[in-house]
């Protein structure tokens, strides 16, 4: 791994860096192996499960899609999926709008203003509040406010991920020169307009990063919907997936099939977003 470090930085030649390629392919084995196990187990029947290595690595007796169909039935897949999608998409959109604005304001002001630098620390430190301490008070508060539903869950996510995303946005802004905004201001553009016309588009790679991280966290989260939506009949995918595991028994085959299915949307989303992360440089606004 050490040798790669030196090679990897050696970026000036434009032709394919084969040494890095070889190392990347070798590194893939740490991912390919667990993925292989997941897929194989997702196709097996409970009676094919053993504790021997050859047994677990062997291919399933048949490649039938029964487990997937059954997993979809148990989790009420399309219904749960639509709630997961709804919550994730709205959260990500709100996060990009609200957190980038807050990140921008704090990034531009915290160095000079005592008040904003306090606000910055105040918000970022929210990251370290253990969820367990908030859980009970929040369950009560959201119920009192009539927010014990998916919309309440979204609001909470916008607050929970604010510290991380504000940290990301302010960090990114350090590398965006103030001169860009100054120029626009000289032309008479308002701060609000300047933000949407110049800063917001420049931060595209960061938007994509924030989108990926937020989406991933929301997509896999169990506790918030469990606590906030308790008693309503709506399930997100991770909530429905709790079905597969009880203390006295677990159907890993169905569970694995279900996890493979729920992985697909977020993976597609990531692939779309990472192109945006990549495009940042060609946009060329950063100088």
């Amino acid at each position: 791994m050490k040798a790669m470090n030196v090679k990897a930085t050696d970026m000036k030649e434009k032709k394919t860096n084969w040494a890095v390629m070889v190392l990347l392919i070798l590194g893939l084995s740490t991912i390919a192996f667990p993925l292989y196990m997941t897929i194989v187990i997702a196709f097996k029947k409970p009676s094919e499960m053993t504790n021997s290595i050859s047994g677990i690595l062997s291919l399933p007796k048949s490649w039938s899609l029964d487990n997937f169909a059954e997993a979809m039935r148990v989790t009420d897949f399309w219904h749960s999926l639509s709630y997961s999608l709804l919550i994730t998409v709205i959260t990500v959109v709100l996060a990009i709008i609200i957190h980038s604005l807050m990140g921008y304001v704090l990034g531009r002001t915290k160095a000079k203003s005592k008040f904003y630098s306090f606000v910055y620390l105040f918000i970022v430190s929210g990251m370290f509040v253990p969820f367990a301490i908030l859980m009970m008070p929040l369950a009560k508060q959201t119920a009192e406010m009539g927010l014990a539903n998916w919309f309440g869950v979204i609001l909470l996510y916008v607050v929970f991920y604010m510290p991380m995303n504000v940290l990301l946005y302010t960090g990114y802004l350090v590398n965006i020169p103030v001169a860009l905004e100054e120029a626009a201001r000289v032309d008479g553009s308002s701060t609000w307009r300047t933000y949407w016309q110049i800063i917001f588009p420049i931060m595209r790679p960061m938007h994509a990063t924030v989108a990926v991280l937020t989406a991933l966290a929301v997509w896999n989260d169990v506790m918030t919907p469990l606590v906030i939506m308790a008693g309503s009949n709506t399930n997100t995918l991770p909530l429905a997936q709790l079905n597969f595991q009880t203390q006295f028994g677990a159907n890993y085959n169905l569970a694995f099939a279900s996890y493979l299915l729920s992985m697909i949307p977020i993976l597609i989303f990531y692939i779309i977003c990472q192109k945006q992360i990549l495009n940042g440089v060609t946009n060329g606004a950063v100088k």
Partner: protein
Amino acid sequence: MKNERKRTYLMIALPILALFICFNTVPLIRGVIYSFTNFKGFGSYDWVGLRNYADLFTDARVLKSYLFTFKLAVVTTIVVNVLSLILAMALNSEIRAKSFFRGAYFLPNVLGALVVGYIFNYFFTYILPAFAKMAGIGALEGSILSKEGLAWIGIMIVCAWQAVAMNTIIYISGLQTVPEDVYEAGGLDGATGWNKFRHLTLPLIMPFVTINLVLCGKNFLMVFDQIMALTKGGPAQSTESISYLIYNNGMSGGQFGFQSANAVVFFIVIVAISVAQMKFTSKKEEQL
């Protein structure tokens, strides 16, 4: 002009701050209030004053969980950042099938905790010992998750395996902000390899190093899922993290008040550390 800017900033910041206070600070304060009670999580409760805090500092189990959590967090943070910086630069260099590799290396982050737990349990319980036997390494012939001294390494490996993906994304987006001409200028000066990284790349992506250190610190200090999936605090209570105690004894058990006190102390400790760390790294950023 200046006033207009200030006003806009204030109009943006205040509503967002209000939202944050409403759903983070207010419940936190309510939680802090519970820390002065013997609340079980339901039913009636009595005020116990500072008893929970006094208990906290004499509770060997809590102390042990702090030591374990910080040890795990420090080591994992270092491992993850070194690996993900290397990986980010590799994925950012001139390679074929970039999208494929970026997608593949992202996978660990997407697999659910149940799947990751099952697979790594299997790996540590059956596969690794079998390899150790073949290679004749006696120390590794049993499952490392059942050994008090080694179980934390198993957790570290799984945490790192999952976290590298996220940190790599942040480093990649950081590397995008490094203008090509910096390298071109560096190339003219004859900077290559390690020197180029040390003097050109690293200073420019320093803000992202800070971000990653903070995020890693946060994730691993609050480690919970991996513990539940791999050891459930065992063997012999050697891998009980702070979050594990807060959740299991506070939420599932009847120690809600006491664990609220634990959460408050934990919160203060981390904020103190991260403020110190941010002060330190921001000085570093300026120096570079």
